């Protein structure tokens, strides 16, 4: 059983929800399937794990439809259906052991998984620089500053404009498709290694329904099970 600890509105339509659950801990980049109780929603929603420590799970989400709107109405003590964690995290794509310098790029709600990734990478001794991009007011600035060696914030522009891509650093990106395409273009140019975390509509969240199939250089893959983290160059949609 998962219970809401708190569900705070950070800015218009953006919420930070903490949930207590004894599910096995998530690795950075994994997601869970969440569904508020009741008959209002049929399917669960895949939501990226921002943080997961001692049974406390933190989720950052934006209200974009019926599911997230219902989620935003949850109050402390309310029950929520939650299963997971699901998928392949960032460090199952590139092992953290071989990362000395990492640059994490998050745009919009794509900043969420960068938080636990930054924490994990710094534990292994890597230097972590975080770039966050927002269209309007920045959120969680202090929280991200606490887990980064360097933090850069971009408001209203292209977060990727601030990022210097180079071959000796491992890059991680999560955000809207145009941001991901721009990052992929720059990584390709610089010959940099980069892991991206993708988003998709899902029904099952574990590779059974095939609702989230994407084209990759290795054939069809499920975002939920084979991802959501991929090497950017494998993802056909991130272009040549």
């Amino acid at each position, binding site marked *: 059983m998962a219970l809401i600890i708190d569900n705070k509105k950070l800015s218009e339509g953006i919420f930070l929800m903490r949930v207590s659950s004894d599910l096995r801990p998530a690795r950075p980049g994994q997601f869970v399937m969440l569904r508020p109780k009741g008959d209002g929603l*049929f*399917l669960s929603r895949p939501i990226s794990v921002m943080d997961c420590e001692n049974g406390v799970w933190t989720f950052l989400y934006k209200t974009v439809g019926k599911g997230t709107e219902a989620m935003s109405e949850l109050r402390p003590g309310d029950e929520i259906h939650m299963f997971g964690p699901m998928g392949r995290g960032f460090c199952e794509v590139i092992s953290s052991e071989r990362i000395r310098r990492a640059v994490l790029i998050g745009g919009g709600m794509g900043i969420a998984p960068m938080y636990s990734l930054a924490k994990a990478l710094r534990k292994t001794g890597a230097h972590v620089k975080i770039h966050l991009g927002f269209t309007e007011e920045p959120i969680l600035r202090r929280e991200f500053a606490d887990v980064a060696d360097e933090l850069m914030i971009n408001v209203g522009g292209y977060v990727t404009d601030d990022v210097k891509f180079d071959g000796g650093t491992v890059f991680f990106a999560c955000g809207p498709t145009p941001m991901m395409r721009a990052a992929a273009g720059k990584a390709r140019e610089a010959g940099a290694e980069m892991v991206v975390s993708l988003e998709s509509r899902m029904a099952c969240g574990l590779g059974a329904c095939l609702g989230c199939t994407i084209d990759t250089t290795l054939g069809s893959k499920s975002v939920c099970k084979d991802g959501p983290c991929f090497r950017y160059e494998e993802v056909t949609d991130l272009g040549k």
Partner: protein
Amino acid sequence: MGNDLLRTEFLGVQMKNPVIAASGTFGFGREYEEFFDPSILGGVSSKGLTLEPSRGNRGIRVWETPMGMLNSIGLENPGVEHFRDHEAKNMRRLGCAVIANLGGHSLEDYVRGAEILNDCDIDILELNISCPNVKSGGMAFGTDPVQAADVTSRVKSVTRHPLMVKLTPNAGDIALVARACEEAGADGLSLINTVLGMAIDVKAERAVFDNVYAGLSGPAVMPIALRMVHQVAKAVSIPVSGLGGIATAEDAIAFIMAGASTVQVGASTFRDPMAMVKIIRGMEEYAVKKGLKNIQDIRGIV
């Protein structure tokens, strides 16, 4: 669950219980292993197979609806030969009845696919003449009694497996199609496949799905499915597997009362990965409470 309350014989196959994971919702049987051991199920029906591997449809593929969902997967699958060489053996190890679901775009596809499946150790061949999400063939075979009978008799003449034909609710008269399949040699029937539906993105002023129409499933379709199972079970003498929106033990029991020998659970597993476990447990509790010797005692009582 070590007793015989739910034990069911279906098309000559002994099953622990009448609960089958519906095609297209349970992969090849391993996807939900983290949640429960698939050997507790009566059976698993494979992802719909086609002669050639298929990438499936482009664009949005799943869409939530009031207590249900639309899907437009389009039979993404690795092909019958890949199934024969890989998944079939793995499915046999699941420890429950193995059903291979075969789709097709032409009569020849179905026949050739069935021939290839003769090389597999499966229990039942489920002939999918009801997929609404492929452009050619698929559902077209299931909406017309003459074509349904034709493909059934052709496949029956080549397959060595018990043949169950999966029917579409999008036929004019499903009982007519059911009788045609029975006369053509089907050993059993499963119904319903998804109901043809549609979603429009009002903001974008266009259809949500690239294929425009898609298949509706989930509790929203259950009353339709139940009515059709009731009609078909009365119209034929071969066993029927009922499906369409089953989410609880009570739903499953209703299908059996309507005349189904087995039930299949699909979309509800997406909502709750433990749905089938709860359904099996609930059916058993019901059988105990009602003092039934076997769950089949209530088959067709309505």
